[in-house]
């Protein structure tokens, strides 16, 4: 393997790179988000950056954009070192950024959002007319259509993203950073976006594209860098690398770790979802008339690109989100009117996608989190009171069994590392001995050892005759754990496959191309 870690690679060695990052370092308190990053990007290319969640991609780009300040390091634009103290400086240097979470004022019009910060005068009247003309010119030139007078919150996500790109172009960006732009897009919208990016490249713009989707990298980039745990581990020409190599670089191990598991012995249906439709706060349909069953003794995996309704489906089943219509039946009993606590009483356990905001109260001590959701259980105290001794004893047992480190039930949960935090959640949910376990992104941001451990627990749960529903955006995880795979696309289940299905087949289905 060629180790190009920290190396300088450009397509045309003679040309001055558009961007050079030298020794960029950044910490957030104890979290070392960027470690000594070096990177060169050639003019007029599309450069991809990939990496797992929390690898430090957004942080690096935010530094380039002046949103954060690096603790150390230097940035050079077209060979000239510059100090990017704030976004204003970045904009002046011709850098534009489309953030992972859009930076739009939702009750403003498109035009107002585009003008913000570059109003061109103290008073809006005349300059607004000029801005409108310029905006319309840009829209036409790059095929980015939006109504200048539309209110942002009333626009679909794709259109909002176009506004973000227009904002950058309006500010005269030569370098455009896009942070996970396709995470929220439908495939058609994503295709449209890529066409726009190609046009931009032809016009000589330099583009940085952040994503964790390898397919996108292969489809559109000229070169690609891989980040892992705050480090820039490799940079490649896209044409000279493969999906497999990138994936390995990304996670730092062989991805296709095959979990040993026996044959599934499906029993009776424990979860039955019928014609379920879920809408989000804005009334957009996120889950569209979905029906499926999960039986005892099997793991059903739900594959799909992030944002295709899996999260909402999981939350509806868990009782966190109110469905718009349809039925959820657990162990023969409709649970529509029951909240999360009552569903737990029926034997549901839920490992949520987001441990920081849902699965754990980070300010609690470990033992307090070990009963979250089950605190009303008589086991943890009679009547109105909690039995702290019983709870701590119970927590210590789980700490021992799950090898949670440090083994201290009185430690604040925030002070455990991500992998150990996830183990706290997994231990709590699996040790309940539930009938039905629903799991979201069980190993997001978790190290290898913990991944294997958690995977094994999930399979043991199945083997103990429980029903398991697994949602993950990691295709490998889905493939190695699931007995059956349901593929979700745009809120619908577009097909069912077995665990042995080829990655390509699933990928196409996830993209909404084949059924």
């Amino acid at each position, binding site marked *: 393997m060629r180790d190009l870690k920290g190396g300088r690679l450009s397509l045309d060695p003679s040309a001055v790179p558009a961007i050079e990052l030298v020794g960029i370092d950044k*910490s*957030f*308190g*104890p*979290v070392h988000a960027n470690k000594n990053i070096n990177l060169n990007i050639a003019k007029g290319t599309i450069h991809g950056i990939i990496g797992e969640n929390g690898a430090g991609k957004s942080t690096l780009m935010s530094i380039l954009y002046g949103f954060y300040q690096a*603790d150390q390091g230097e940035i050079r634009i077209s060979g000239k070192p510059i100090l990017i103290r704030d976004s204003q400086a970045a904009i002046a240097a011709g850098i534009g950024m489309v953030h992972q979470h859009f930076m739009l004022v939702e009750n403003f019009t498109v035009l107002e959002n585009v003008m913000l910060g570059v109003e061109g005068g103290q008073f809006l009247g005349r300059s607004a007319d000029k801005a409108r003309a310029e905006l319309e010119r840009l829209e036409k030139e790059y095929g980015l259509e939006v109504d200048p007078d539309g209110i942002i919150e009333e626009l679909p996500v794709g259109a909002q993203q176009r506004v973000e790109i227009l904002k950058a172009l309006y500010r005269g960006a030569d370098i455009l950073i896009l942070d996970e732009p396709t995470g929220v897009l439908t495939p058609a919208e994503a295709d449209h976006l890529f066409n726009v990016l190609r046009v931009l490249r032809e016009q000589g713009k330099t583009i940085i594209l952040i994503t964790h989707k390898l397919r996108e990298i292969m489809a559109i980039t000229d070169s690609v860098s891989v980040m892992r745990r705050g480090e820039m581990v490799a940079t490649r020409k896209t044409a000279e690398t493969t999906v497999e190599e990138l994936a390995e670089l990304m996670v730092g191990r062989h991805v296709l770790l095959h979990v040993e598991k026996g044959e599934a012995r499906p029993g009776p249906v424990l979860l039955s979802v019928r014609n379920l439709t879920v809408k989000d706060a804005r009334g957009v349909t996120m889950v569209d008339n979905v029906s499926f069953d999960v039986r005892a003794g099997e793991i059903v995996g739900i594959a799909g690109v992030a944002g295709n309704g899996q999260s909402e489906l999981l939350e509806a089943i*868990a*009782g*966190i989100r109110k469905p718009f219509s349809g039925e959820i039946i657990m162990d023969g009993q409709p649970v529509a009117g029951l*909240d*999360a*606590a*009552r*569903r*737990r009483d029926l034997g549901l356990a*839920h490992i*949520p996608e*987001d441990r920081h*905001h*849902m*699965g*754990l*109260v*980070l*300010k*609690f001590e470990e033992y*307090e989190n070990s*009963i*979250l*959701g089950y*605190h*009303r259980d008589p086991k943890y*105290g009679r009547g*109105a*009171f*909690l039995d*702290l001794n019983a709870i701590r004893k119970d927590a210590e047992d789980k700490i021992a069994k799950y090898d949670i480190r440090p083994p201290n039930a009185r430690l*604040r949960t*925030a*002070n455990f590392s991500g992998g150990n935090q996830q183990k706290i959640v997994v231990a709590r949910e699996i040790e309940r001995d539930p009938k039905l376990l629903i799991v979201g992104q069980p190993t997001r941001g978790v190290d290898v050892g913990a991944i294997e451990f958690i995977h094994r627990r999930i399979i043991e749960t199945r083997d103990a005759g429980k029903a398991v529903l697994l949602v993950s955006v990691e295709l490998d995880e889905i493939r190695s754990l699931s007995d059956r795979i349901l593929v979700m696309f745009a809120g619908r289940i577009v097909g069912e496959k077995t665990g042995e299905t080829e990655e390509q087949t699933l990928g196409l289905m996830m993209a909404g191309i084949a059924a």
Partner: protein
Amino acid sequence: MTTASVPLPNWISYGLIPLINLLLAFFFSGLVVWWIGESPWEALKFLIQGSLGRGDAIGFTLFYATSFIFTGLSVAVAFHAGLFNIGSEGQAYVGGLGAALAALALDHYVPWYVTMPFAVAGAAIFGAAWAFIPAWLQAKRGSHIVITTIMFNFIGAALMVYLLVNVLIVPGKMAPETRTFLEGGQLPKLDWLMALFGLKLGPAPFNVSFLIALVMCYLVWLLIWRTKLGYEMRTLGISPSAAIYAGVPYVRTVIIAMLISGALAGMMALNAVNGAAARLQVEFVAGAGFVGIAVSLMGRSHPVGIILAAILFGILYQGGADLSFEMPTITRDMIVVIQGLVILFAGALEHMLRPAIVRVYQQIARA
């Protein structure tokens, strides 16, 4: 590198930093005293002597502290559930009505200890009732509880004035207040308690409601850290999303937390109405509800901290009265200034010094 997420040991977070903030508040108060041409040291001496120097002074200090314990607990309980109850003032005011009605109804017939539970219940129920609508609006309609409780303070004041002026006033009397309760409607003074320490209570209205306040401290501690409801409240207060995940019923928890908060505020009336004045007067709360905010912030919403902070404010109130007596250029409003500065430094500016302290701490830890 940011210092916000560097963990500090508890004795710094809960001991040193609040202490420094408090000292800053006193420093600026001293500046004000100095500005108006008096000696801050002299003032401090009078303040301490006037609040702790004699038996009756201590009695007054503890009398004020009793009120502040109730309101401090009130603010703290709501705070644990993530609710900022600015309405303790109004809840205490309306609570006074419940306490007074119980006393007026019973004082002719029964001794104080029979009236007491009714007065406690009356104060708690009326106080809770006044917290209910803001709570319901927050829980069901998402109306910001800070704004609604402020509004309810004013509505409560108007209601109480109306009742006192038109309904409860003794005909022919000047002041809008109820008749004086007989012994059966009063809470007796705690002479015996002071005598245990060899002190004479004298005229200070330090009374049985202090003991009720201590019991409430214990109950609040029990509620917050030992019950399932308290667990749910804290979950909701720290992480609303985790509370939803855990199936904590939002509406119920918000409403119950606010009812408890309102009830605690209402009980403040026991001290002022049944204990000290033996009658319901206009504006008897006199800002104790707002002091509760300061007390809760200073005491980090923990009953023990609240007791300490309440005594501190009791010292300020009693000592401040004595101070203004000894130094007529310093009016009693000086304690309002100190109170404001304490809220400013211990509350709004609580993190001001943290980065500096973190740096010093890291330096020392490294060395």
